[in-house]
């Protein structure tokens, strides 16, 4: 390579060794500022807690098993709702490819479902399904199903016309085209839906727990905020972040396996 030329930037390539410093830098700066502002001020600690108090709360909740138990419940609710919502939504969205008329009729209903604030549905769902696990799963399901339908339908309708043309000329039936072209082609959209739905499923489960529950991270955060235990609230929020990151990492792995043909 001639002098002065730099390789084109590839967003997939990390920052290398520099990344070891640069990636945690904003977090470290944030923790230092938080610590400095709250260290000698009980008033500020009451309102904002402090990194030290959060660590202490984490150790307490982790050693008592309370954190793990609540995290498990939230993960179970969110993942169950996520799987139900994504599988149901993807199945409906992809099968709309068979009939544009059905897709058109369904469109306003799906838009309505997608735009309803899930918080407004929570009291109804809790009344129907009780304060146990199922109401949270249903809220996570309702939060995710519309996104999965819309994304999958978009994917099914975005198939390269020349692929469809080739299959028609080849004498493929509609179900063969659906299986061999539409589903694999739309997979990238389904995975995008999964990525969006992780956050939405957690939100659905969290809202359910926040309104009425006896366990889960939402319940733990709600109970702690009621007694101004901000350290426990932050532990709950951090646990939610880690759950979301772990689930996103699983989707990344799935994407790498399913879309390995992308060079």
């Amino acid at each position, binding site marked *: 390579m001639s002098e002065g030329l730099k390789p084109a930037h590839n967003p997939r390539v990390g920052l290398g060794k520099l990344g070891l410093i640069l990636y945690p830098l904003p977090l470290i700066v944030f923790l230092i500022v938080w610590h400095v502002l709250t260290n000698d001020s009980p008033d500020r600690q009451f309102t904002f807690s402090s990194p030290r108090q959060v660590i202490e709360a984490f150790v307490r909740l982790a050693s008592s098993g309370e954190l793990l138990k609540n995290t498990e419940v939230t993960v179970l609710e969110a993942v169950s709702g996520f799987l139900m919502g994504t599988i149901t939504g993807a199945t409906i969205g992809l099968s709309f490819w068979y009939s544009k008329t059905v897709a058109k009729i369904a469109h306003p209903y799906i838009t309505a479902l997608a735009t309803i604030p899930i918080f407004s549905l929570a009291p109804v769902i809790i009344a129907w399904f009780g304060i146990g696990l199922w109401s949270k799963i249903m809220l996570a399901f309702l939060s995710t199903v519309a996104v999965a339908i819309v994304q999958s339908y978009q994917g099914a309708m975005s198939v390269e016309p020349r692929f469809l043309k080739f299959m028609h*000329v080849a004498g493929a039936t509609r179900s063969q085209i659906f299986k061999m072209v539409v589903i694999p082609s739309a997979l990238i959209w389904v995975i995008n839906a999964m990525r969006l739905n992780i956050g939405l499923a957690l939100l659905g489960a969290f809202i359910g727990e926040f309104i009425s529950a006896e366990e889960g991270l939402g319940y733990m955060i709600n109970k702690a905020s009621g007694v101004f235990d901000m350290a426990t609230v932050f532990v709950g929020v951090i646990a939610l972040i880690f759950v979301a990151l772990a689930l996103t990492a699983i989707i990344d792995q799935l994407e790498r396996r399913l879309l390995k043909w992308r060079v």
Partner: protein
Amino acid sequence: MENAVLNIAGLSYGYIRHTLAQSSLTIRDLALNVKEGEIVCILGASGCGKSTLLNLIAGLLQPTSGEIHVTSYGDNHRRIGYIFQQDALLPWRTVEANVMIASELWQDISEEEARGLVRQYLQTFNLNESILKQYPAALSGGMRQRVSIIQSLMFNPKLFLLDEPFSALDFFTKLKLESEFYQLVKEKNKAAIMVTHDIEEAVVMADRVLLMSQDGTFTKEFIIDLGEGNRSPESARGTTRFAEYYRDIWAELKAVIGNE
């Protein structure tokens, strides 16, 4: 017609209104016969209906009037190999899975027979067997188009439809592919209709060149006879007749386009 692979009679496509003058037709009362071992090239301005004609023959569009008869092997399949400017290799399938689509869809030959055919075609098109495990994204444009032809060949078509198949390739790859495809049609006694903008390509590949005007009719036919018995598209470019055909077709094409 003896050994005819394709017969088209009175073919029209478009919107028919009360009178013919009011009708908006892309294809107008076309007739075309193509026989075994023959390559027919269609030249014309953009939007004159060349690709529409191919889509009609392929069964992707229904004619407004007229008849299209494609000779088959006695089964219900139309057996057409359609090769596009941009290949139709499914990117999520390996090259092997792409070329095996025919046997997967029709299951008319055993998997072992199909693999044998693939190996044979890979040799014909100078491709290494190692590419079978690769995904299309890892192949060059020329390799992709070769695989695309093999993909179509696996359907054992009598008739090939080619819509500017080599226009996206570099000159040398284009020369090679033209020769390989030409040999294939002649040796296997297939037939081909090729739509192109390239007069040079039309002259060296075709047995007949048809000029299509904007009103969807053939205005002129050139029978191409480059003189030698064992010609190839590459050697044909060096003949004196090639230059004459090129000049005549270009003059005619200018007149057709100029009148529109």
